[in-house]
């Protein structure tokens, strides 16, 4: 049981993610989480505003069930399958974040400096979450997929568009991490 409670190494986790993709394909579907955002727009009546949301969202219910399962899985993993170990980050990562004012780095999955209510309920904190979420939602649909749809499924199917999208993920991610985050948290 002990190995279950430890963090799982990459060579266990990666193959298991491939297995999840395999199962969904075998079930006649596909592994793509960002489609659910479009489905949520359609359920909310988005078809009134744009043709992009005029589709049979009921055919996408299976994917919402995957989302529901994922939330339950997250709950199970932190409450019953974790030993509370600090994330084994590179010490350099910890000190880099320390220089930006982050404390208790790796002691939880998310930094309190961004996700604790004390941070969220400030103008800056709220803006970080809203801008971050908006960019993810806008960008993923513009690019036609996210980490699961492009980086895992698309690359596995040797799709050149997915490789271009992943290169884009890195252009944006590197610019945010190396240029913008120091500006956002350094002041």
């Amino acid at each position, binding site marked *: 049981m002990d190995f*279950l409670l430890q*963090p*799982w*190494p*990459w*060579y266990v986790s*990666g193959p298991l993610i491939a297995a999840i*993709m395999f199962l*969904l*394909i075998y*079930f*006649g579907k596909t592994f793509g989480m*960002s489609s659910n*955002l479009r489905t*949520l727009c359609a359920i909310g009546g*988005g078809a009134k505003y*744009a043709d*992009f*949301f005029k589709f049979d969202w009921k055919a996408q219910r299976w994917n919402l*069930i*995957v*989302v529901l*399962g994922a*939330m339950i899985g*997250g709950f199970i*993993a*932190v409450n019953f*399958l974790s030993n509370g170990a600090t*994330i084994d*980050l*590179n010490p350099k990562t910890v000190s*880099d*974040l320390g220089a930006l004012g982050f404390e208790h780095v790796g002691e939880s*999955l*998310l930094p309190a400096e*961004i*996700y604790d209510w004390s941070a*969220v309920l400030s103008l800056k904190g709220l803006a970080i979450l*809203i801008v971050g*979420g*908006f*960019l*993810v*939602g*806008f*960008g993923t*649909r*513009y*690019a036609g997929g996210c980490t699961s749809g492009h*980086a895992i499924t698309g*690359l596995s*199917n040797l*799709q050149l*568009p*997915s490789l271009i999208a992943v290169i884009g*993920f890195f*252009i*944006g991610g590197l*610019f945010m991490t190396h240029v913008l*985050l120091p500006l956002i948290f350094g002041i």
Partner: protein
Amino acid sequence: MKYLKFLLVGIFFGIVLVKSEAVSWYRIYEMFKFQSFHMYGIIGSAVVLGALSVWFLKKSKIKSIEGKEIHFTPKNMGIVRYLLGGTIFGLGWALAGACPGPMYILLGTGALSMAIVIAAAVLGTFAYGLLKDKLPH
């Protein structure tokens, strides 16, 4: 009951992504700093095994669980939408530290403020739907 298998796959997905720490903001930051192999190992091994399983599925012509043919829809070719959309996505990914799967998983772990990120992501997708025809693809 036909939905049960999707619920189970979802639960498994949630557990794997928490236990691998791929849902952690810190791991995403570390990845973009090139300070650890961890995330690259996860994505890399998933893609290598994923490519093998896609190849196997195509080669063996295995039918889906419903007895239907499995077909893979190729992505439409293009550059602008993938590069530009991908870059916008990457900016948000590195800021919020969560992509569209982990958002829900993290909400399930009890990080309730993630609901704001999810709501903003829905809004972002809605905005794309409104602007779609005006954007270069």
